[in-house]
């Protein structure tokens, strides 16, 4: 009669997961399968729709980062119509996008990833959540957090028309501009966002970097993977979320190339596995060698950490300082310690806030030249933006009426499906030895491995509906279930 323990599940990631862990005869981890069990089929059902609806339809792929899908789609339909939006339109879109980064990174740090550090990995689960965080950091900080999210969403609403699922991007620009009053409101918000970002970095300093246990955890090899990294950069190879080329660097930090949106197929391929609904993207030039590290494996990673690794710095002064401190502290580029992603996220938070102010104070920003009417026949177009959870690619084909005939989407989290699987496996390997029964703390380590990617399964499952119950099943060599760690969210 087999021993069976059910342990409270992993949570706090937008979406869900299902992990199968098989043990060998010694009771060590033989293999793990990280499954994604659903399908929505956006790539199919956008076919037949009017292409200008793509920013409105595909932002329903994900309600956590609809802005990212809205923007990728917007840039794709610009390309479909061969139209170049006026500068004001581009800047407004990017401005919205910066505000979105501020809220999204904030949400992740305080509500999703942060609790692991703020409350501590061993804190009682019941407290390891946003409410727990609120109790620990105090209502004052809590209201700061709430205010920060509020601010970001206010900007999104001003430019995007709505707080969630913005609606203003159309081929050639936007349906509206902003007034001077709105601009100055946004500027105010931007300035307070900078303060908030700095405040958060300080908090991270005190709670994490000043805490040896955490630093060891970060620097430990339990969360290390030597993979390729990709990220969107500008002409000076500085991180850019909205525009530019995708920089690809190897595990030893060397840039092997940069590709423009239209070239993505020369770089990225996706693999289908029979045991999951989600595809595995990998670097075409390197090829698929399975879920393994190293220079020979096409597995790559697209996260805040990846972006820092793939770029030569930040385009804003304060963020640049943090960027340097980051690599100094962690021993230079590239950083393979996955837990550092949390820190990298905060560096990006600061950049987003700074750039938000830059854009809000741009003289062109209130111009009413916010759209160009397309003249050319619609054909085909690719749009790429950097979503918080990874590079986001939308590709549409249309007929001469601008009706979608084909679509191909590679979404943020999907990029990280392979590395996530590997991290989970590695964590499992280091935490389950000789069939040692996982305790809650140990299991939480698996959660952390998972969570640092801030995986957005609604996104990843753009070809799947967001729902993804997370279940860890541990099986003996005989395939018999030893242990089930389950959660349904």
């Amino acid at each position: 009669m087999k021993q069976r323990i059910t342990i409270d599940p992993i949570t706090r990631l937008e979406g869900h997961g299902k992990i199968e862990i098989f043990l060998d005869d010694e009771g060590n981890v033989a293999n793990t399968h990280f499954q994604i069990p659903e399908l929505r089929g956006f790539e199919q059902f956008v076919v037949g729709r009017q292409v200008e609806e793509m920013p409105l339809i595909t932002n329903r792929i994900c309600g956590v980062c609809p802005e990212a899908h809205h923007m990728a789609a917007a840039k794709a339909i610009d390309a479909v119509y061969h139209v170049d939006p006026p500068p004001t339109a581009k800047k407004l879109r990017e401005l919205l996008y910066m505000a979105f980064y501020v809220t999204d990174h904030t949400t992740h740090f305080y509500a999703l990833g942060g609790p692991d550090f703020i409350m501590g990995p061993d804190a009682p689960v019941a407290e390891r959540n946003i409410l727990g965080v609120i109790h620990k950091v105090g209502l004052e900080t809590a209201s700061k957090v709430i205010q920060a999210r509020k601010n970001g969403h206010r900007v999104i609403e001003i430019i995007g028309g709505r707080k969630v699922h913005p609606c203003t991007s159309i081929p050639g620009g936007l349906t509206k501009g902003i007034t001077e009053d709105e601009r100055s409101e946004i500027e105010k918000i931007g300035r307070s966002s900078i303060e908030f970002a700095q405040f958060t970095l300080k908090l991270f300093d005190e709670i994490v970097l000043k805490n040896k246990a955490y630093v060891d955890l970060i620097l430990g090899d339990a969360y290390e993977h030597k993979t390729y990294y990709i990220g969107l950069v500008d002409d000076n190879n500085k991180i850019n979320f909205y525009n530019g080329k995708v920089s690809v660097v190897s595990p030893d930090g060397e840039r092997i190339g940069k590709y423009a949106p239209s070239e993505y197929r020369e770089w990225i391929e996706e693999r289908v596995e029979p045991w999951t609904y989600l595809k595995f993207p990998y670097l075409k030039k390197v090829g698929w060698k399975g879920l393994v590290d190293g220079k020979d494996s096409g597995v790559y990673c697209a996260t805040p950490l990846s972006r820092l690794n793939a770029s030569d710095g930040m385009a804003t002064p304060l963020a640049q300082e943090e960027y340097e401190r980051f690599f100094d502290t962690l021993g230079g580029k590239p950083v393979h310690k996955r837990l550092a992603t949390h820190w990298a996220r905060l560096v990006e938070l600061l950049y987003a806030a700074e750039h938000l102010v830059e854009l809000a104070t741009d003289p062109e920003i209130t111009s009413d030249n916010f759209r160009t009417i397309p003249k050319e026949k619609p054909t085909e177009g690719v749009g790429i933006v950097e979503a918080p959870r990874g590079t986001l690619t939308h590709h549409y084909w249309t007929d001469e009426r601008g009706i979608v005939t084909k679509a191909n989407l590679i979404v943020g989290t999907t990029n990280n499906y392979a590395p996530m699987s590997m991290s989970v496996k590695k964590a499992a390997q280091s935490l389950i030895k000789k069939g040692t029964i996982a305790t809650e703390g140990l299991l939480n380590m698996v959660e952390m491995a998972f969570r640092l990617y801030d995986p957005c399964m609604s996104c990843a499952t753009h070809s799947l509906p967001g729902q993804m119950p997370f279940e860890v099943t541990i099986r003996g060599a005989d395939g018999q279930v030893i242990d089930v760690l389950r959660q349904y969210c």
Partner: protein
Amino acid sequence: MSANSKPKFAMYWGASCGGCEVAVLNTHEKILDIDANFDVVFWPVAMDAKYKDVEAMEDESILVTFYNGGIRTSENEHLAKLLRRKSKILVAFGSCASEGCIPGLANLYSKNELFNTVYAQRDGCSTVNPENIRPQQNWDAPEGSIQIPEFYSILRPINQVVDVDYYLPGCPPESERIAEVVDLVIQVIRGEAALPPKGSVIGAGASTVCDECKRSRNVKTIKKFVRIQDFMPDPSMCLLEQGIVCNGPATRSGCGALCPSAGAVCIGCYGVAEGVIDYGARMLSAVSSVIDSRNEKEIEKIIEGIPDPAGMFYRFSLASSLLGASKSAWHDKE
């Protein structure tokens, strides 16, 4: 007061995008009210969920469950049924749960069409699949067999698998509306308010979006349908009168006409108006009625301006419409 003496609250996502959760987080301070007035027993996005506890709970021991997301797989169905059993009040939260939402557009295609598009190798796309593999519900890994849930041929709103008490429309519901509903529930708990009749739509207006739209309106006659990228619309005049198909007239009020105010058309995320059975039928009938022609040929011509009626009139409500899905989806051969 101790947590467990407070009424229990749960929020769960089915086949959804997470936007509903974000909308709840966007009630900002209200979250604290929820914390203060409820014992939040199950809310995966915000806190550690104890699924086994939920399973162990007595039936109807949760006072209110906000359920968002539609039913696409056997797993969705399982969870919807579980939470129905455990909850006194089940609220279909947001468009997906209420009417299927955008993912419901998948019902225009068969499961096979959908699988082929996603997994088969296609010209110009990034998927490489020489052995033409498809995900298997049951797969024998070298170490043993593993499963993924059954993927149904069509997506359904939750009221097609469980009994629903209230509907809270919107994609996502506006945070202000959510806050109002939370307040209402709190008042009910305190005995300061009564629950609306079962089956009611809550957190929404009684009329349609035009009621909240500031644009000027006139008697409507349409000679030509145009698309937003074709021209620069008059910012103060009804978009439909300018020939752009705006779903405002048929869409329930409650959002504050956000999209039309931002120069974009209403795409219909708040769903059907009070008492309406089929959203698409309403839009179709209204839009075609005001076509300005008595000549069959000319009417055909004008209608070419609406290249995708099913997509435009059932953008959010196909799964809950009378027809529910296209013929190919219904007749999908396994």
